[in-house]
């Protein structure tokens, strides 16, 4: 690379470095402030969704002994509930980021995009911790959660977190200018959960019902994860491109919303 090209890259590199610094500062600040003023507050950030997840697991495995597939009820419910938790918490926390951290936009170096990205990245890291600790605990209790296709299980988890991030990203910008959006988001999450097949087998439902619940992206998360556990599980309901496509569409819509509402967001 000649020197003039390097010079031309300079401002971009500087801008990226500056943005990375801001995002890093925001993440550190977020970990220290969300629950209490110590670093241990981060344990609560991880522990909250984790305890929700474990509670649901205990309730389902104790109250429902008959499962539609496989021999292990814990595995069936784990593969259904984990995508829900991985979608619910990161998306909701990211959704609230801009409203919560709005005063920080007072510093011109902090952009609304940085605020949402910082929270989103922290939530992604948290989601991985939740997944890892959850699996570790299941193993401790002697439940064999090792999937047949490990790489498929990991991809399903990645895809679910991507969906959560995108929904949260889009939601954060809408929520800033339209407060009822949080209610819409929460209700949508609950509906998505009950239609996701976490507690039943979608392929056992009538065709018309299957047709409608197919549009639920969370259903594809669950199907994807289960396809890693049960051989020949997927009966044509799972569409990976649909899940990734919906997530990407929300992310794009969020980016467009950020660009077009930048002035309104700063003023509101």
């Amino acid at each position, binding site marked *: 690379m000649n020197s003039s090209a390097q010079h031309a890259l300079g401002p971009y590199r500087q801008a990226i470095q500056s943005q990375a610094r801001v995002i890093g500062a925001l993440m550190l600040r977020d970990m220290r*402030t969300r629950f209490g003023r110590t670093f241990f507050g981060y344990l609560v950030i991880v522990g909250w969704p984790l305890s929700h997840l474990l509670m649901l697991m205990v309730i389902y495995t104790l109250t429902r002994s008959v499962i539609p597939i496989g021999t292990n009820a814990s595995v069936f419910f784990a593969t259904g509930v984990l995508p829900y938790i991985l979608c619910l918490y990161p998306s909701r926390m990211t959704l609230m980021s801009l409203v919560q951290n709005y005063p920080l936009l007072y510093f011109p170096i902090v952009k609304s995009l940085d605020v949402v990205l910082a929270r989103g990245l922290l939530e992604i890291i948290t989601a991985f911790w939740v997944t890892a600790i959850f699996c570790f605990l299941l193993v401790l209790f002697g439940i064999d959660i090792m999937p047949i296709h490990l790489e498929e299980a990991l991809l399903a988890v990645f895809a679910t977190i991507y969906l959560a991030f995108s929904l949260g990203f889009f939601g954060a910008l809408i929520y800033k200018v339209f407060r009822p959006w949080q209610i819409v988001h929460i209700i949508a999450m609950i509906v998505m959960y009950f239609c996701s097949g976490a507690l039943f087998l979608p392929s056992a439902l009538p065709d018309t019902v299957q047709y409608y619940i197919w549009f639920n992206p969370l259903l594809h998360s669950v199907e994807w994860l289960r396809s890693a556990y049960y051989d020949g599980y997927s009966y044509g309901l799972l569409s990976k491109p649909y899940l990734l496509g919906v997530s990407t569409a929300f992310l794009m819509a969020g980016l467009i919303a950020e660009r077009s509402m930048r002035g309104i967001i700063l003023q509101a």
Partner: protein
Amino acid sequence: MITVENAHKYYRINRLKKVVLRNVSFKFQAGRSYGILGINGAGKSTFMRLLSGTELPNGGRIRRTVRVSWPLGFAGGLHPNMTGRDNVSFVARAYGENVRETVEFVEDFAEVGPYMDAPVKTYSSGMVQRVAFGLSMAINFDCYLIDEVMAVGDARFQARCKTEFEKRKKFSDIIMVSHGMDAIQTYCQEGIVLAGGELHHFPKVADAIEAYRLLNM
């Protein structure tokens, strides 16, 4: 330093449209300090936020080629539940300054003592302003935007601000909003009167003060 290109800015309050800038163009030159004058409600503070980038114009552009501060004045930006130290650390990190040095500077400058480790919501308003002001002084900006800040604190603190500003004048420029003509005359070479959505530029600050006096009559 800062270029205002055909900027348009309005507010809508109860369907009443209030124009702050009407397609204004202006170039702030590096090495010069500007005083901005205008009657109450002319939009001086809005103009400062536009210059800093914490608010955007409805039309046109505002370009900054140097590091411009946030509008110094009140306590905006400090998080009430965070300690003074954490607040200062966050801003230092975001601006890529040395965290420890920045905290030390603010501790020394704001003189809040042990309150540095208490949440900002427990501060008196004077303490908040001193920390906020010290924080902006701890970061090296090429251009400081000052919105009526000289009235912060007691006489002793004001004297410290003044010496700090005298030091800055060598390296940094100042754009200042004030109703105190003494402060404007001390710190600024050029004057701008904001009235009716237009900027009236006066190369000599004394002429701007004269025009402002006429506006007030």
